[in-house]
């Protein structure tokens, strides 16, 4: 009968006066009830004590940038649309402790937070919000890494859904295929009628609750009234945002002038992302004692609209507001599909209502991406093994200065997991009270050691290079996608890098030299600002002396170098490639350097018949969490820390080298 809803579950009727019984049952095990209630001239989700706290007879009026409470004569409890609070406040709170770190002398220790996830019951979850919980489940629990705080809250929560009985002009769940009908993800679904509620179970928990409530089987009239009510909501919303081909249409419009135009109106205040029920970007905040001996890490809500979100030591990948707006919109409606197999938007309309200047995403999308499909993009990259998420104290056993600002630390005593990285992977390295740094492994020292070559570029890296042998650091990893050494078997190899970029490539060079016969010709191009800025000078000398390795070093004039190579000052590695005589048609290239340098290198390599599918590059982004949960390192369809940092150039598509991605 209620075929629009969940065909499988029978419908029951609960009298209005008995709703309190349901809430009492939910509370039996000490569970806190979270539901809609009136506060600060809005209907928010907050802790409720009982039915009396629900917004009886209250409704809302919403429009772009506007929200107002209304009053009705009736006593209905759920006749309104989604308010400013989304359930992520409770499943993914704005500020939660995620770890504790201590430092005692040279020793460090890392421990889990002292948290016990609260037992919660959510009352009045709408269809679009159920869809949003599903979206966040895929992001935060889909792996390979997972957010344990989220898991604990989500697993224990009981979800009581409510079928929408009204809609706002900002609603577009119909277009996003997320509502208005509740389709799953709930334990119990309510449809409010004047006399009471139609209840349907969506889980064994829901069924168990139903069995203990004074319900009767719903009559045909009641079932029809409920179905009509929801159908009317669907009709009222219509289809405000045609989404056919939207993914491709949008990605084809990365150069639209509209991005700059919307940036003139956008306040980059981040409200849209904070009210969004699926946005999950976060940062780590550290709070500790005055001496940095004891610090708690907290995950806090962040936003891709914030100025520092995509900053790295050398600059800001998305310095302009138009870059940030494009990042947000294309992620929600396009690249989210590539990453997580669904849209990042559920059409709840909060970002429209709560934008202080009323920017309407639907309007922007229709203006930016009219119906012209673009070619599909290639599939995602290979999987890498998952390592434990906790930081493990590890001892520094040796330290060596490489250049004026760069040192190599040797760590020893790693267990099998932490020592078993691949060339190009990196470790997250942490000191209590400092943000962790993503550091590429510059050499593996089996069975239990690694070298980390670190340039002092900020306080955290400065603190790291200040450590002396005997001190400890926390490590997590190795993580990230490394250099695919195997694809070069039987082929020639071209390595192009500059400055500190040699560090992540050294394990690859080690691997090739260790099994030299497996590979063909080996050309290594290395540039630096001055000869003194070159890493691993002794080894360069040794490599230069080999006749099975063609080493070309380049530096700017002004300083001599003792490296006896074919080459010298004043010419760039790029021009050296242009002038080279080798043929690259059977070569694989590995490139590491600033994006502009890699672009120029790719052009030069193409001139040597090395096509983009045989070029591997490593991308730099702001790495906050290092495991693909915080959003900072996003680059188009990818999280650099999880999907990279090494990418096949052909996979990057037209996001490579584009400003503001």
């Amino acid at each position, binding site marked *: 009968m209620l075929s629009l809803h969940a065909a499988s579950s029978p419908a029951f009727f609960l009298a209005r006066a008995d709703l309190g019984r349901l809430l009492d049952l939910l509370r039996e095990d000490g569970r806190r009830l979270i539901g809609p209630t009136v506060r600060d001239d809005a209907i928010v989700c907050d802790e409720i004590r009982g039915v009396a706290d629900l917004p009886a007879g209250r409704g809302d009026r919403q429009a772009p940038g*506007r929200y107002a409470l209304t009053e009705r004569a009736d006593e209905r409890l759920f006749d309104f649309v989604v308010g400013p609070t989304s359930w992520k406040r409770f499943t993914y709170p704005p500020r939660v402790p995620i770890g504790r770190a201590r430092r005692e002398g040279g020793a460090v220790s890392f421990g889990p937070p002292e948290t016990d996830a609260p037992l919660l019951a959510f009352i009045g979850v709408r269809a679009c919000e159920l869809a949003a919980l599903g979206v966040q489940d895929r992001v935060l629990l889909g792996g390979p890494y997972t957010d344990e705080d989220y898991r604990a809250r989500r697993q224990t929560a009981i979800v009581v859904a409510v079928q929408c009985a009204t809609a706002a002009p900002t609603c577009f769940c119909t277009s996003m295929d997320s509502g208005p009908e509740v389709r799953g993800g709930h334990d119990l679904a309510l449809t409010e009628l004047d006399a009471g509620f139609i209840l349907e179970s969506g889980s064994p928990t829901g069924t168990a609750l139903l069995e203990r409530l004074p319900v009767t089987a719903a009559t045909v009239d009641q079932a029809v009234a409920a179905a009509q009510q929801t159908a009317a909501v669907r009709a009222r919303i219509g289809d405000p945002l045609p989404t056919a081909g939207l993914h491709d249409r949008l990605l084809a419009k990365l150069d639209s002038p509209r991005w700059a135009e919307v940036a003139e109106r956008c*306040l980059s205040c981040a409200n849209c992302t904070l009210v969004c029920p699926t946005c999950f970007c976060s940062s780590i905040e550290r709070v500790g004692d005055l001496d940095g001996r004891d610090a708690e890490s907290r995950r806090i809500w962040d936003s891709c609209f914030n100025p520092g979100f995509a900053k790295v030591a050398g600059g800001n990948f998305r310095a302009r507001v138009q870059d940030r707006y494009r990042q947000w919109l294309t992620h929600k409606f396009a690249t989210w599909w590539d990453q997580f197999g669904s849209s990042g938007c559920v059409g709840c309309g909060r970002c429209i209502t709560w934008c202080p200047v009323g920017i309407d995403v639907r309007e922007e999308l229709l203006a930016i991406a009219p119906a012209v499909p673009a070619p599909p993009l290639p599939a995602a990259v290979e999987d890498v093994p998952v390592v434990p998420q906790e930081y493990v104290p590890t001892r520094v056993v040796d330290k060596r200065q490489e250049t004026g600002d760069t040192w190599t630390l040797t760590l020893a005593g790693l267990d099998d997991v932490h020592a078993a990285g691949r060339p190009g992977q990196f470790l997250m390295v942490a000191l209590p009270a400092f943000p962790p740094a993503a550091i590429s492994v510059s050499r593996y020292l089996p069975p239990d050691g690694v070298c980390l070559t670190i340039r002092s570029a900020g306080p*955290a890296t400065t603190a790291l290079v200040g450590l002396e042998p005997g001190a400890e650091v926390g490590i997590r990893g190795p993580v990230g996608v490394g250099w695919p050494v195997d694809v070069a078997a039987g082929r020639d190899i071209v390595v192009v890098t500059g400055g500190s970029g040699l560090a992540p490539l050294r394990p690859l060079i080690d691997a090739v030299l260790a099994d030299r016969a497996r590979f063909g010709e080996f050309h290594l191009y290395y540039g630096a600002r001055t000869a003194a800025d070159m890493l691993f000078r002794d080894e360069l000398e040794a490599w230069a002396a080999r006749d099975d390795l063609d080493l070309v070093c380049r530096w700017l004039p002004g300083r001599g170098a003792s490296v006896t190579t074919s080459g010298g000052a004043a010419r760039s590695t790029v021009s050296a490639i242009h002038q080279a005589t080798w043929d690259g048609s059977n070569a694989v290239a590995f490139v590491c350097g600033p994006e502009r340098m890699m672009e120029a290198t790719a052009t030069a390599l193409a001139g040597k018949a090395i096509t983009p599918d045989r070029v591997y590059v490593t991308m730099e982004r702001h790495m906050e969490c290092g495991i693909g949960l915080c959003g900072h390192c996003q680059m188009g369809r990818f999280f650099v820390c999880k999907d990279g940092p090494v990418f096949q150039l052909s996979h990057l598509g037209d996001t490579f080298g584009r400003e503001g991605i």
Partner: protein
Amino acid sequence: MGALGPKPRIGVIKMASCDGCQLTLLDLEDELLELTERFQIVEFAEASSSRSTGPFDICLVEGSISTPEQAEQIQELRRQSKLLVTIGACATAGGIQALRNWQDHDEVRAAVYAHPEFIESLATATPIRDHVAVDAELRGCPIDAGQLVELLTALNIGRRPWLPDEAVCMECKRRGTVCVMVSGRGACLGPLTQTGCTALCPAYDRGCFACFGPRENANAASLTCWLVGGGAAPADVGRLFAGFTAYAEPFRSLVTELGATPGATNGTGSAGIVGAPSIRSGARIAGCMREPGD
């Protein structure tokens, strides 16, 4: 492990100000005695009779430069200080007294003092950074105690302080406050203002009046269009910007452009630092707001 060596020497110095920012240091009841074990506070006239003119490892400067003596003094302080940190809206943006920068100085002096010829002050009250290089700043009127502790902790252990440059809205939403502007309770400068205050005013049911000053990318023009489009008089919107950080761009230009010159009595009086009910966010206006389907 701090880069400043053991027990860095701190000086707390005041220019033109209300003393509230340096009082924040004395208000750190829980940390004060512990702090004095990590730092030597060698100059802090409000708290100690023992005085110093430098050198300082860290100099915390409160207040804006508004007399010829202060303009000289700040140069000397810069020479005496390894790190010069400005604290509060006066030091970082000129403060409320910078409202006189729009007015005729002689007239202002004469309006307040019977003998203006005895009053030696500069025609403008200006932020410290207009005079000397500044190594770090804590914003706010007054500064936030938590940010002060964070700064001192970071200096103590040699890391970068966590002083986010995002909008007040970030903390407002984390806090769970309902947006005062969208819910029709008044104009709010939160979207334009740098966070750090823990989003205080909206949590107390009033709009932000930007005491932490404009943040990076503060799009004041767009917010102005939205408010004027909603029916507010331009001068009333302009007076929103004529507060404690009025002299910082882009507020400074808008105060003038919108006809909200301090000291003049323009506007209807219906709006101000606190948004009055007559300001409703709403309509769109040409030039800023596009009509649907344009």
